[in-house]
């Protein structure tokens, strides 16, 4: 070895070695600037703390508190308009438009942020940087993407059925928006507080299959058709476990109204995911199948059928499909939070923090779970997935519904505080779920691979005879 000093040998390594983090760069600036920056940060923090203290301590008037529940604000508006003597339709129409605008901006805003979140988080999982060139932390990347997608030429296959080809990107967007109707964002903040909200949710979620099938059929492409057929088969199959899982929720809470379900969970301080673990799992897994996310994204399995049902779509049409995928992911997150994670409540925290922020945090958590799954798991095969639904989820869900029916009837007749039966149900359901899953898997003939999983190490070489000897011995 020579005595020359060690240095990175390749340009790329040199670049990496010379790269300095944000903190290192900050330590490099002059003392005056450092002091000024620290002063500024400290001042900002202190003023924020002061404001927070004033707000939380309740020194402000009650008006301000309404921001915790925007439903109150619209109600105030409505009553004010009625007092002013408008035609009865006007206040109704105004508040409805406001709510619709709110939902649309939530979904649209999420489409902007969500794709950044997904790409960025996935990049961190995959030891990459992700988008970091457009704006701070690459935050403007989705805007750049949207502009790019809109500018792109839309190539339409010559053999495609024109009308049916144009329709699906629009059709598929409708259920993704409509599904938000009954979701309670806070106590009175629900756009469409139906008393059959669960039925409405199931019905709306079935609509998406129409757009998918139209897209696959009208493209006149075998990949599209394969993807569409896979998706249709999967959606139809997985609607049954979803319905059965929600049936268990309805049985226990005794209501189909989403706000009542959330209120039930807040009332007993018991999230349904603890009471009904199997239903929660079924709902989550089946939802990933319904919205085509890993590990169940066989409808658009890119390593097999390129992009599935939207292979032939280009430009903003493909962008709409991708946007719907994102929108559906947070819709499922909202459903998951509402049905199983306590919705906008958080064990009393909702009196301090606006409920819609709690719900958004829960949606974000579920969305993070989806991204995590996407970054980790391989994909199932179609027959495995269908078999899982029909042979596993559906029978066990039926058993669970029977069980929950018994529990619900016990609970309805219980006199003393609800803590004891709920704790007992939680433990019982967890234990029964584990045991049921194990026994059923055993009955289906599943055995985990333990023996002879690894290849054996051969020290001598040989041919067929050696192979037979090794296999025999």
């Amino acid at each position, binding site marked *: *070895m*020579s005595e*020359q000093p*060690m*240095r*990175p*040998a*390749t340009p*790329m*390594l040199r670049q990496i070695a010379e790269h300095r983090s944000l903190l290192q760069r900050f330590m490099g600036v002059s003392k005056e600037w450092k002091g000024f920056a620290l002063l500024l940060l400290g001042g900002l923090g202190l003023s924020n703390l002061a404001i927070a203290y004033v707000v939380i301590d309740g020194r402000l008037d009650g008006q301000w508190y309404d921001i915790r529940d925007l439903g109150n604000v619209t109600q105030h508006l409505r009553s004010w308009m009625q007092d002013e003597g408008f035609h009865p339709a006007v206040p109704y129409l105004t508040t409805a438009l406001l709510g619709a605008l709110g939902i649309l901006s939530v979904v649209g805003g999420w489409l902007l942020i969500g794709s950044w979140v997904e790409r960025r988080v*996935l990049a961190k*999982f*995959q*030891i*990459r940087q992700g988008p970091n060139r457009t704006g701070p932390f690459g935050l403007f990347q989705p805007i750049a993407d949207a502009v790019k997608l809109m500018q792109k030429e839309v190539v339409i296959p010559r053999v495609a059925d024109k009308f049916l080809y144009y329709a699906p990107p629009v059709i598929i967007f409708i259920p993704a928006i409509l599904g938000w109707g009954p979701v309670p964002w806070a106590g009175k903040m629900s756009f469409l507080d139906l008393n059959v909200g669960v039925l409405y949710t199931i019905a709306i979620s079935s609509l998406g299959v129409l757009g998918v099938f139209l897209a696959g059929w009208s493209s006149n492409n*075998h*990949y599209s058709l*394969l993807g569409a057929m*896979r998706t249709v088969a999967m959606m139809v199959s997985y609607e049954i476990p979803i319905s059965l899982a929600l049936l268990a929720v309805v049985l226990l809470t005794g209501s189909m109204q989403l706000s009542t379900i959330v209120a039930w969970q807040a009332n007993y301080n018991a999230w349904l995911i603890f009471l009904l673990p199997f239903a929660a799992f079924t709902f989550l897994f089946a939802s990933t199948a319904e919205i085509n996310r*890993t*590990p169940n*994204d*066989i409808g658009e*399995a*890119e*390593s*097999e*059928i*390129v992009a599935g049902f939207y292979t032939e779509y280009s430009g903003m049409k493909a962008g709409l499909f991708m946007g719907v995928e994102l929108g559906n992911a947070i819709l499922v997150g909202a459903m998951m939070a509402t049905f199983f994670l306590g919705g906008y409540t958080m064990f009393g925290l909702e009196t301090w923090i606006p409920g819609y922020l709690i719900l958004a945090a829960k949606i974000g958590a579920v969305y993070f779970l989806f991204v995590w799954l*996407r*970054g*980790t*798991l*391989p*994909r*199932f*095969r*179609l*027959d*495995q997935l269908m078999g899982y639904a029909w042979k596993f989820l559906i029978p066990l869900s039926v058993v669970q519904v029977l069980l929950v029916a018994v529990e619900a009837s016990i609970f309805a007749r219980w006199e003393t505080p609800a803590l004891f039966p709920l704790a007992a149900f939680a433990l019982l359901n967890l234990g029964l779920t584990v045991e049921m899953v194990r026994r059923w898997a055993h009955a289906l003939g599943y055995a*985990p*691979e333990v023996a*002879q*999983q*690894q*290849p*054996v*190490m*051969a*020290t*001598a*070489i*040989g*041919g*067929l005879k*050696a*192979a*037979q000897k*090794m*296999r025999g011995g």
Partner: protein
Amino acid sequence: MNSTAEPYVLNIGPQHPSTHGVFRVRVVMDGEVIRDLDMIVGYLHRSMEKLAEERTYTQNIPFTDRADYLAAMSGNLGLALGIERLAGIDVPERASYLRVIFAELQRVASHAMANGTLVSDAGAWQTPLLYMFREREKILDLFEMTCGARLTTNYMRAGGVSFEPPAEFWPALNELVAELPGRIDEYMELLADNEIFLARTRGIGIITPEDAINGSLVGPALRGSGVPWDLRKAEPYCVYDRFDFDVPVGTRGDVYDRFMCRMMETRESVRILKQAIAQIPPGPHKNDVPLALRPPVGEVYSRVEGPRGENGFYLVSDGGPAPYRFHLRAPSLINLSLLRELARGASLPDAVVTLGSIDIVVGEIDR
């Protein structure tokens, strides 16, 4: 199958995410099940064997980079050994050790790529692939600091290797060798017991040892079927007879076995690397060899165990400066001999995974 669906033709490739290059198959499908398959290659055909007849032996070494571009070092080594045997050239001992080190590094890099893309084909959206690229990048950095190129290395020459590695090469190599076993454990943890991965690969694409031998399969495809055949042990070239290593052999011959064989071969490569680093003697890295060699009339079939199997080079010399005939035995192409039998009756996802487990490089198929 009692399906009554009308069979249809699905054209997979030449541009498709899981064909690993410009490889095309026309598939007759019945629903999701493949009834028949016809593979169409040649989109990357450069007629290397003809071009080689107009170039000197040394000028032909870059062709081996461009044939199997994921294992350029192994190709270099095979051709260099062939030229040496044909012309009777000696190699310094240090050069032999350097060749072993670089060939094994190349094997690790290539297996990382193969396994990563296989898992990607199974649907894990690029995460294992990018993890494995991390090690591959480090190996390519080692190549770059030694010979200036990352993929098309053109490193081995008749009579030795072209450059002595720089001083910073050895600490970087030691660091890599020290961290590789932990990384392999990490991948095993992520994939070897992954229930979904097992469901997708266990019992899929089974090749019996009889078929594997008869179908001229080589490399991990052959060893995954349970045949303990490795040219590094059968015909120890360079200094492979001085190292202590084992040959991982699959037990069932399915996709998972081929995957695991590659994983464990990486471990064995690390073992070889450690021994080679400890044993490497000082000395020249290259003997003086004329650039325009004129080997005597004769022929040679030299072969090395590349990452994809037997990299063979059939050289016929007529005494001139260029080979009279230059044939490159492409393991990627010949390993596909059984593709049709494997794919018939399999479903499309299974066929994709099976193709991924055979690990083709289209540059080598088409040459």
